[in-house]
């Protein structure tokens, strides 16, 4: 069985992001970029499936700028067998992503697409679901545990009320949540070996997909700064302030 793992290159989670002076978006110059943490978890799960003998090949794919090669090399060091980079502009919208992935699925014919539930930059949480719709495949989102049977996959999902377990027929899309696993480190020997693994570069054109962005960003603003708290001296004052200043009573 082939497993396809889509990976997004995002601003590293430790970086305190800053807006561009003109408010047109987040300033990414000189900013440390790395693999979206949820995608890292999806990749780890795919590699574990392979190590358990349940998958034959793990293919990592990323869509974006040329520097996306960095995270694909990391993926190869962490156990992916080969990688595909689809060169496109940065921040391609989820529907475009899903269409490009659908085209790759048509070529590679994986039985499982394992991906992060969302990217930590725009938090869209849409690409997996859209891909499932385009392919007409079943989906198990927010997975915290998966078990592979012959022609189906059992997915434990993190939902608001607790855990929900569903069975999805293969081929399927599974999106990974935080608790699915703890990803491994890319070790130095494996990074060296990964340099020799194949990394193909293609474009949406070659895949027959027209990238059309549908959203226009009007403005990006910082969240309001939290006002400092105050200490009240009596219950009466508290009630008074809640009523007359905060206007919540």
């Amino acid at each position, binding site marked *: 069985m082939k497993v396809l793992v889509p990976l997004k290159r995002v601003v*590293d989670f*430790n*970086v305190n992001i*800053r807006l561009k002076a003109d408010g047109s978006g987040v300033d990414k110059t000189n900013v*440390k970029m790395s693999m979206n943490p949820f995608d890292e978890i999806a990749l780890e799960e795919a590699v574990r499936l392979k190590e358990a003998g349940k998958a034959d090949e793990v293919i990592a794919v990323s869509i974006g700028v040329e520097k996306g090669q960095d995270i694909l090399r990391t993926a190869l060091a962490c156990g992916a067998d080969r990688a595909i980079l689809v060169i496109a502009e940065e921040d391609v919208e989820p529907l475009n992503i899903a269409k490009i992935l659908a085209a790759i699925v048509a070529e590679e014919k994986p039985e499982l697409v394992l991906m992060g539930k969302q990217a930590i930059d725009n938090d869209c949480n849409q690409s997996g679901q859209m891909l499932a719709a385009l392919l007409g495949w079943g989906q198990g989102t927010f997975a915290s545990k998966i078990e592979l049977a012959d022609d189906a996959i059992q997915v434990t999902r993190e939902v608001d009320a607790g855990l929900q377990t569903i069975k999805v027929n293969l081929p399927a899309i599974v999106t990974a949540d935080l608790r699915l696993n*703890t990803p*491994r480190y890319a*070790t*130095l020997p494996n990074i060296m070996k990964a340099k020799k693994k194949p990394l193909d570069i293609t474009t949406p054109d070659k895949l027959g997909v027209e990238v059309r962005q549908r959203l226009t960003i009007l403005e990006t603003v910082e969240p309001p700064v939290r006002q400092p708290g105050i200490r009240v001296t009596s219950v009466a004052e508290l009630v008074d302030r809640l009523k007359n200043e905060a206007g919540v009573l």
Partner: protein
Amino acid sequence: MSARETMEVDVVVVGAGPAGLSAAIRLKQLAKAADAEISIIVLEKSAEIGGHILSGAVLDPAALDALVPDWKERGAPLETKVKSDSFRVFTKNGSFAIPSFFLPPLFSNHGNYIASLGSLCAWLGEQAEALGIDVFPGFAATEILYNEDGSVKGVATGDMGRAADGSEKPEFAAGMELHARYTLIGEGARGSLAKQLDARFSLQENAQPQKYGLGIKEIWEIDPKKHCLGHVEHTLGWPLNNDTGGGGFLYHAAGNKLFLGLVVHLNYKNPFLSPFEEMQRYKTHPHLARLLEGGKRLSFGARAMTSGGWQSIPELAFPGGALIGCSAGFMNLPRVKGTHNAMWSGMKTAEAVFEALSIGRSNDLLAGLNARVTDGEIKADLKKVRNAKPLLSRFGTLFGTLFSGFDLWTNTLLGFSVFGTLGHGAPDYASLNKARDSKKIDYPKPDGKRTFDRASSVFLANLSHSEDQPVHLVLKDPSLPIARNLPDFDEPAQLYCPAGVYEILRDEDGKPRFNINAANCVHCKTCDIKDPAQNINWVPPEGGSGPSYQGM
């Protein structure tokens, strides 16, 4: 314990800073020219090349011109030429400029660039990779490996995925041994491996003790009306008193950015002094307050630098390798620059290594390396300023500056010094007066606009550090901070650490306890230098930990 994998290479370089990358690039250039195969690995503890680099920086491009002559075409991030230069002395509320005709020519920044050394290193890393050099960010060299004959065999990278108690977490991955014919150590000021090599091979024995300064830098975006692209200012005096060496810098960089910082020499005497608070106070001076009005702070960082200069250069070679860059210490204090010398040292060491490799040598002593590295550019740069630091240490800022100005002129015009070569006296850790003989310093509270506390500052260093890993600030004797440093010096770690790593906490009975917040560490190494008990050993945490400086 899991077995470590081993790899054999010709040269391993520890640290992807200006020295390490210059050494690797020069080696590869020489190998290509001679049609020889040389395998080079560069290890870097930062998750990204340049992520732990902090410098002013006004760069003298002389060494870069020699290393990559077409750096402009290749897009090196040196864009802002220095256009104007001033040198001011600060009093509490005012300042005056020292006319440039008083200043020896070496102070001139004509032909230099205002740049981010971090960005330059990232670019040098790309050049190195394009030449076929393997640069591995995110891997700290934590151990020196020795051959049976005592020569250096290489280094090992640290284990990943150890819990705080030292046990192996499920994602544990053992470090790797890199065996090399020659090992080059370019860890920067006060490197943890250089320290071990010095202890083993007595490299500093015939030199003066190394001296250090702590540089704290902030990047601001300021009002375009107040920004003056290419303008460079250096300041002396306030907020530091006459007993405390150091000075400030204000560089107007591209994008309405202001690189501003304060260097405090680590031979300061008052245990109540806080370099961090001095830096915050510096920004309240009317000259800076005007510039910063309406601006926004973008980044914060701190790093120790060497300042011992010519007479503190250690024996560079040890059997099987060499110290390069600030691991040895080539900072030119009066010029406030060191990058050019770090690069020269890397390049010239690479030339010596290449010759040795070419005739089949390995793991031996590169004899005569000091002369080979320093003869020429480095000596010309450092020797004439050799008395500046000792004069400042002896006579304080006011007379020290006057005397060293005089000394620089006689060295420049007449080629000699009436002082000969002065020594540095005691190392920095031994300079503190006892707390009971010292005056407390009343630092103003942060206003949240211009001045800030440690927590909000360290936040801007983009720290990443897994909490569940062994503490990387190792106390040789855990009782000393409370038993000795607290009564004698009020435990100065609380104040000299710019990141708030060290705290004295008291339990309900008022009993003190020494607390180490290792995850706050910005890798400046000041604790390793300044602890009066020399009890704190800074070792690299898990690779990829620490700050993630952008454009520093």
